[in-house]
């Protein structure tokens, strides 16, 4: 029995490899090898568009930074929808303390997956989407420094997602993890009576590990690109703010993610191979927490810095003024980057650590609010007396600032030890970080998606639907997350599938806000899908009329050139179009209009 199983598996894997080899052999036909010296950005000497594969193969084999950016974007958006549907189920479960829509353990599983999905499968990838598409355009590079590594980094993500969600698929007796995203030991080491020794947890950890490898590869690529591939006219003095935040973020990733990867491997070894890194007698309960949060806090800044960059970049375009105090925004970014490594233990104030140590972490945590505030004031002053145009991306930027202030101020409260000892592990913390991750990071992401939508798709979205989306989200997120803050003050602990009757009202309010956001999400999906397919074509390279204010930038210049090129040599491009996939076809059609 055992032997036949092994045999069957061997045959399956063998066939799998043969199929891949066959596909590769076929691919070789359309490719003409030109050894490309450095493995670096080329193009001129590569192969021409005639040899680019058609249809799905194009997306599977692309190493073009814009294609990869779109892939990251699609991936991030899908993950966002999955994570959002998960939380809708949970919010319905929380409508009433007696509700039995979900079992308690399934609630825990959704909770775990929601957090990991949003942070690792939506947050990091959606940032990488913007960075991949835009950074080379902004700094005048032909492509990323290592285009193939760029593609590897992306392709690690889909298997990562499948592993992270593996427990939800009907795979024998694998059950989804219930460890929460923080994976605290000894629970996550498989100790105790629950299902935590199940392979579902191992698969999730492996998936997490993969996404970490992906982020690290991406960050090395961005650092190399920004340091070495800048165009002649792009100096450190005039490097744009978004690239600055990507550079800083990449630096943070470089130190944070390998540490997470190592800690995850230690955990896997503890779980499967009998090591004792995190056993009570050895590392104890605190070792994991220190390792995790030394990664975990920088991670939150990894997620917030580039969205801050997007806001710093987009906001001035609709204020008719340059970013106020550009230099100080850059300095603040760098300061946050450095300081973010000195605050991790503010997540552990309640663990009984040495009070003197604790106080030092409190001091640094309060200090990190200063550069954050500098940025906030700079954004506000940028709008001050400006010619503000409340387009959808601008609304999302303003919403970002508003929500970031609420999230930041609640963070400062939590950074104060006596306050934290009361509020730790309550809904207040959930409110705090959702103001930031949803209210700020996701809002900035959507500001970017709306702002560059004409460039990504060549079409315009429906403005009115965009505004409806914004207002449902702005109101919805503030209803939900403010209710959470109140629940936290009332002492409602986080991560429970049920609660005492006195918390019912505010839980219902929170669900109401979530429903509002859900509706907004439907509007957004409809708007983006329909506009992408049949929205009005963008006619010139300046859909936002940036030239009027002298705010025109490189990436739109590129877009304009692209449109003009499509016009100019549209004729000889016939062939590229027939097997070239949608983008050219669209550009082409546009040119003929």
């Amino acid at each position, binding site marked *: 029995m055992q032997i036949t199983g092994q045999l069957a598996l061997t045959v399956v894997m063998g066939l799998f490899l043969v199929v891949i080899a066959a596909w590769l052999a076929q691919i070789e036909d359309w490719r003409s090898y030109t050894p490309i010296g450095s493995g670096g950005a080329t193009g001129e000497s590569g192969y021409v568009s005639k040899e680019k594969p058609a249809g799905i193969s194009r997306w599977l084999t692309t190493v073009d930074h814009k294609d990869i950016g779109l892939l990251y974007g699609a991936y991030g958006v899908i993950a966002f929808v999955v994570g959002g549907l998960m939380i809708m189920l949970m919010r319905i479960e929380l409508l009433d303390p007696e509700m039995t829509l979900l079992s308690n353990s399934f609630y825990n599983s959704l909770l775990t997956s929601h957090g990991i999905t949003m942070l690792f499968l939506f947050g990091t990838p959606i940032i990488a989407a913007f960075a991949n598409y835009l950074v080379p355009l902004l700094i005048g590079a032909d*492509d990323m420094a290592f285009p193939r590594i760029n593609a590897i980094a992306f392709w690690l993500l889909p298997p990562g997602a499948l592993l992270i969600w593996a427990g939800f698929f009907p795979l024998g007796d694998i059950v989804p993890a219930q460890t929460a995203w923080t994976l605290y030991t000894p629970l996550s080491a498989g100790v105790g009576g629950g299902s935590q020794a199940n392979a579902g947890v191992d698969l999730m950890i492996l998936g997490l590990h993969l996404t970490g490898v992906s982020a690290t590869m991406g960050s090395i690529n961005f650092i190399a690109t920004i340091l070495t591939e800048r165009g002649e006219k792009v100096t450190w003095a005039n490097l744009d703010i978004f690239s600055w935040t990507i550079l800083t973020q990449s630096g943070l990733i470089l130190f944070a993610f390998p540490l997470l990867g190592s800690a995850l491997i230690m955990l896997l070894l503890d779980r499967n191979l009998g090591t004792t890194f995190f056993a009570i007698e050895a590392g104890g309960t605190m070792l994991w927490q220190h390792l995790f949060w030394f990664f975990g806090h920088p991670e939150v800044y990894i997620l917030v810095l580039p969205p801050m960059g997007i806001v710093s970049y987009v906001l001035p375009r609709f204020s008719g003024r340059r970013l106020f105090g550009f230099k100080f925004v850059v300095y603040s970014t760098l300061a946050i980057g450095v300081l973010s490594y000195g605050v991790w233990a503010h997540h552990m104030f309640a663990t009984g650590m040495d009070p003197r140590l604790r106080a030092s972490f409190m001091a640094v945590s309060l200090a990190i609010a200063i550069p954050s505030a500098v940025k906030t004031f700079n954004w506000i002053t940028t709008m001050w007396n400006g010619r503000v145009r409340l387009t959808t991306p601008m609304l999302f930027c303003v919403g970002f600032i508003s929500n970031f202030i609420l999230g930041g101020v609640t963070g400062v409260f939590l950074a104060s030890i006596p306050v934290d000892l009361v509020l730790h592990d309550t809904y207040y913390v959930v409110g705090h970080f959702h103001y930031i991750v949803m209210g700020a990071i996701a809002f900035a992401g959507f500001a970017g998606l709306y702002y560059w939508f004409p460039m990504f798709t060549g079409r315009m979205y429906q403005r009115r639907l965009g505004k409806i989306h914004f207002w449902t989200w702005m109101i919805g997120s503030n209803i939900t997350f403010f209710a959470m803050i109140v629940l936290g003050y009332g002492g409602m602990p986080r991560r429970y599938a049920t609660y005492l009757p006195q918390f019912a009202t505010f839980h219902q309010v929170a669900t109401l806000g979530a429903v509002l956001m859900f509706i907004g999400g439907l509007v957004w999906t409809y708007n983006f899908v329909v506009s992408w397919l049949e929205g009005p074509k963008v006619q010139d390279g300046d859909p936002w009329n940036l030239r009027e204010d002298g705010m025109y930038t490189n990436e739109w210049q590129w877009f304009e050139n692209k449109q003009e090129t499509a016009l100019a040599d549209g004729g000889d491009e016939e062939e590229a179009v027939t097997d070239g996939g949608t983008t050219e076809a669209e550009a082409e059609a546009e040119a003929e209009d």
Partner: protein
Amino acid sequence: MDEQPGLSDQYRRASPWPLFVALGIPIAEVGILFDVFAVAVAGLLLFCGSVTGMLRESGYAETPWRPLGAFAILLFVVGGTLAFTDVNLVTRGYAIITAGGLLAAAGIGGELFVPKREAV
């Protein structure tokens, strides 16, 4: 970029290898962690083979045979450490050694029997 508008749209770049490098890693990881022999071997072959393909494509290696040999040696060392030392993960070690053996066979076979092509 400014001087050659739309350049990267006219000369797109594509490579079939990254996808398979990325697939090889999780397959090998799952196989080794859960001690599933065939999966571990297949994952390692896929990973090492695709990296080799990429090295050749980008001109770092003229033929795939030497990189395959290098990977084989690496896998022998790692597999040997797992199988024959105090680490004592015998079956996992053998899986890695097997993958190394197959790569070595391909590498040596290629070096000896495949006629040298014109450098492309």
